[in-house]
């Protein structure tokens, strides 16, 4: 489309060109006719008169040409001429052209990809009407994005700033459309969800607030377009069809428009169901519990004319009312507003920080590339000094010569930019199709759009002018007389040239990139080998949710025991443990912990929050979590026995001061339950790899049942065979229970995903930096060797040692390399603080990193100067001197 517009504009110019030519033609014709009329009147025949008139007029072509130039229509023609000359010149030096285009392709490509990410995740708004006024509610100092249902109702009904407030929650369900139940990710939403967002159905109808009449009153489904396409093949008759969701009948009401895929950028649900049916969907309903504050994300449009500040003041007053009214449940009720696409600031802050950092690095790459090309162009201009001098002497204007140089630069930048952009478009499209985690609905929707094309081409143009400007001073100062007389080789100055500075700067930038990528790689290595508090190797996971097959209440623990026993009996299985949610699996569920002395159990009196896990007695054995003191649970820790807990070392230290004194100690939970600590386990990682030591507690599943089930199957058997056996065993227990199996090492990918992505992108940046450093040093070294070939020949002829010859040829390149690397390393160490944000244990002051950078730069220097050095050493003085 873009190309078409371009051609239209160019052809437009040609059209106008031919129009003006036609007009000039006609005017000349009319002139000759008028003159012929006059001549005819003097008695000549018409033919003779016309002939005479034409002769009198003189050179018509010259006249037309000059007229055309006078009309100012020659810009395009001169440009075409410049382009033709440039293309011819670039064709003659293929190596130069290739190096320049390749450098720019990489640099522009990298920038386009990073900008594409930035554009899709931060700049581009959600595909809802009026995204600018859509905000999500964040609560308290830690900006919690989830709220309880009763709190949500109060926000909705008591605020005066939002047109409406809707709430939603992401859950996994089993969907049975007649053949077999499969897992789906869905959104449970309040009845007013679609109306609050102003979304209209593509097909059928949506459910509304009026459809809600208490628990389980609205068994309706609205499908996403994508799911309708993939699962129902766009069958328009699905409207009205009844399907089974977690064994409960739900009626399909309609299909959402294709562009609306929920309000989270990373999670595309399959369908929406009303939140009032939570009991059918999740097995239990917690909609009446005000203290259940980890439930719903709340969002809505501000009323027209209401500012963010006014809305916040309004919400905060609602918040303080709730704090006063429900002191037991509500604390920290002050708010912040954030656009909801990245789950508010929870994901938004790290993503924004990371992308900004990445964009900075990409910008540095482009800068390094420009420096690289600038010095290439300067060298080329120096080589062409004689030609330039000759042209100046023959009367060409400096402006025209500079125009030629710029045309060359811009031509290269456009070709390189276009190739880079095409590459990045392919990459971004791939990235959008990619589902990085097999068990989660995570997507990276980064399809490029016009913004990306424009930015990439502008960047290409800008960099063309930037590096094209480097040789300008050189041309302006050219004194034709001097150059022609002395020859260009006489100007090898000793002083520091622009090119030296460019190269040193470029090497410094590259060293920064190499440093940051090494820091990231090192951080990832560490996080892979750190202690998680469990052993992911040789463990198979079976994940299911019992409510998806209709189990609830007392049936849950019974079924859990059956599953454990079934898997335990598979030959070769050592231990089977059960946990509701794995550690390091999209954060953790936190519970407030109160000391035993606390009587008023309101949130603000809590000692701290602890990651909470409901486990079977064998879980620690199956996960290979080390017990430090006390005992694990047994099957006797059930509903009828006193409540007990196992806590981690950090928990014990925080509430009792030491591990020893914690055993046998008591603490309280929010609901007033008094728990006795019977065992201490090692600390582990629960939410993210980068977290500080976090308190955690483990509760026996029989005392706090949960329908979420993850079975950890510890076995030395071949994973594939084991998976088959496990699947068969699961189906034997209940064929209607949807489940997934995965190796724990694979499942951990989700926890490692951010730092993997960070490391990968920083690694690519570092690699590009390294490549640019190599081409830069190579260019400089090769150039200086070729310029000084004659001098080197004389040195060799006079008996110079190899070392001396090398020093003469490449000493400067190495000095610049050392200087630039040192500067880059220092900058990189400073910049790496930023990385600590994303990458686990990113410490640039690590001797391995420092040494690694120094070694890498030295190796790069060696690699880049290898060929020029060979050339310098193989100088044959006889040959050279004869040539002169």
């Amino acid at each position: 489309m873009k190309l078409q517009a371009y051609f239209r504009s160019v052809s437009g110019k040609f059209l106008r060109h031919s129009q003006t030519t036609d007009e000039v033609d006609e005017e000349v014709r009319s002139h000759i006719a008028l003159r012929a009329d006059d001549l005819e009147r003097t008695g000549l025949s018409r033919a003779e008169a016309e002939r005479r008139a034409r002769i009198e007029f003189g050179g018509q072509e010259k006249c037309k040409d000059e007229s055309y130039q006078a009309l100012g229509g020659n810009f395009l023609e001169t440009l075409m001429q410049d382009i033709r000359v440039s293309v011819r010149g670039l064709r003659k030096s293929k190596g130069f052209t290739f190096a320049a285009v390749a450098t720019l392709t990489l640099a522009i490509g990298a920038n386009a990809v990073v900008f594409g990410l930035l554009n899709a995740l931060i700049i581009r708004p959600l595909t809802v009407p009026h995204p600018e006024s859509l905000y999500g509610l964040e609560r308290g100092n830690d900006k919690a994005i989830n709220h309880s249902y009763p709190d949500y109702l109060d926000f909705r009904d008591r605020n005066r700033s939002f047109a409406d407030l809707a709430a939603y929650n992401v859950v996994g369900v089993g969907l049975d459309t007649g053949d077999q139940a499969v897992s789906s990710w869905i959104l449970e939403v309040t009845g007013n969800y679609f109306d609050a967002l102003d979304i209209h159905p593509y097909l059928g109808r949506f459910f509304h607030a009026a459809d809600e009449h208490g628990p389980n009153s609205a068994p309706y489904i609205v499908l996403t377009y994508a799911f309708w396409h993939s699962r129902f093949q766009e069958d328009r008759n699905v409207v009205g069809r009844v399907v089974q969701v977690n064994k409960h009948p739900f009626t399909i009401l309609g299909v959402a428009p294709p562009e609306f895929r929920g309000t989270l950028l990373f999670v595309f649900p399959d369908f929406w169901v009303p939140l009032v049916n939570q009991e059918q969907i999740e097995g239990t309903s917690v909609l009446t519990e005000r203290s259940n504050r980890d439930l719903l994300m709340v969002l809505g449009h501000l009323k027209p004319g209401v500012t963010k500040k006014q809305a916040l003041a309004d919400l905060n007053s609602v918040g303080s009312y709730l704090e006063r009214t429900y002191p037991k449940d509500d604390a920290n009720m002050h708010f912040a507003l954030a656009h909801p696409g990245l789950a508010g600031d929870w994901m938004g802050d790290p993503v924004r920080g990371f992308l900004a950092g990445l964009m900075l690095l990409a910008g540095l790459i482009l800068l390094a590339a420009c420096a690289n090309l600038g010095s290439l162009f300067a060298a080329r201009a120096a080589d062409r000094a004689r030609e330039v001098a000759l042209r100046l002497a023959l009367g060409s204007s400096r402006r025209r010569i500079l125009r030629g140089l710029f045309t060359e630069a811009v031509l290269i930048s456009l070709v390189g930019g276009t190739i880079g952009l095409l590459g990045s478009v392919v990459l971004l499209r791939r990235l959008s199709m990619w589902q990085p985690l097999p068990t989660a609905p995570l997507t990276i929707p980064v399809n490029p759009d016009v913004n990306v094309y424009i930015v990439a081409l502008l960047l290409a143009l800008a960099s063309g002018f930037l590096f094209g400007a480097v040789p300008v001073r050189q041309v302006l100062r050219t004194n034709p007389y001097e150059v022609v007389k002395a020859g260009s080789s006489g100007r090898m100055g000793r002083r520091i040239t622009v090119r030296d500075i460019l190269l040193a700067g470029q090497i410094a930038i590259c060293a920064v990139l190499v440093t940051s990528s090494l820091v990231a790689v090192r951080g990832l290595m560490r996080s892979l080998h750190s202690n998680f508090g469990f052993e992911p190797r040789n463990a198979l996971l079976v994940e299911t949710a019992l409510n998806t097959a209709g189990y609830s209440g007392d049936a849950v623990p019974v079924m859990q025991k059956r599953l454990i026993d079934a898997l335990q009996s598979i030959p070769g299985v050592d231990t089977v443990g059960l946990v509701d949610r794995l550690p390091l699996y999209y954060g953790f569920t936190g519970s407030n912990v109160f000391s035993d002395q606390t009587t008023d159990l309101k949130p603000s009196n809590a000692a701290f929050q602890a990651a909470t896990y409901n486990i079977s007695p064998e879980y620690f054995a199956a996960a290979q979590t080390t017990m430090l003191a006390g005992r694990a649970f047994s099957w006797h820790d059930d509903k009828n026995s006193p409540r007990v807990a196992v806590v981690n070392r950090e928990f014990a230290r925080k509430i009792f001061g030491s591990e020893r004194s914690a055993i046998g100690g008591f603490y309280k939970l929010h609901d007033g339950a008094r728990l006795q600590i019977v065992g201490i386990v090692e600390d582990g990682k629960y939410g993210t790899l980068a977290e500080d030591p976090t308190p955690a507690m483990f509760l026996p599943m029989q005392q706090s049942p949960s329908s979420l089930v993850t079975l950890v199957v510890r076995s030395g058997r071949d994973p594939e065979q084991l998976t088959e056996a496990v699947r068969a065993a699961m189906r034997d227990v209940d064929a209607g229970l949807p489940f997934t199996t995965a190796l724990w090492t694979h499942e951990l990918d989700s926890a490692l995903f951010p730092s993997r992505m960070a490391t990968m992108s920083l690694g690519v940046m570092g690699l590009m930096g390294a490549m640019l450093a190599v081409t830069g040093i190579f260019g400089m070294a090769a150039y200086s060797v070729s310029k000084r070939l004659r001098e080197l020949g004389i040195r060799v002829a006079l008996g110079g040692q190899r070392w001396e010859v090398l020093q003469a040829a490449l000493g400067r390149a190495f000095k610049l390399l050392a200087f630039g690397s040192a500067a880059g390393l220092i900058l990189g160490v400073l910049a790496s603080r930023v990385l600590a944000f994303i990458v686990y244990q990113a410490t640039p002051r690590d001797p391995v990193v420092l040494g690694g950078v120094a070694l890498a730069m030295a190796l790069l220097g060696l690699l880049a100067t290898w060929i020029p050095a060979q050339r310098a050493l193989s100088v044959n003085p006889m040959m050279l001197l004869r040539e002169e």
Partner: protein
Amino acid sequence: MTDQAQILPGTLDLLILKSVSLGPLHGYGVLLRIAQISAQALLIEQGALYPALFRLVRQGLLKASWGTSENNRRAKFYELTAAGRKRLREETEGWNRLAAAMGTALATQPEEI
């Protein structure tokens, strides 16, 4: 031909402005008018006229429109714009000053020094 004066560089534009200022003209008419007002002393090379006309149009000193000549031929007519009128005045003054100065200079006798 020899009795016709060579046109000084830069004077063609002035002559065109002057002749057009006396009434709208087509290109051939400009030639005739220059010959007429200079009493056949100044003759313009026909091919050089049009680039000069276009240049003046582009500078906004003339405006051009297609019309019909007295003997029913389609021709492009030129007229002065306001800017052209102003330019003509300035250039005329400049030329008069130059001519006067040249005249004085060339009329100088040895005894006057």
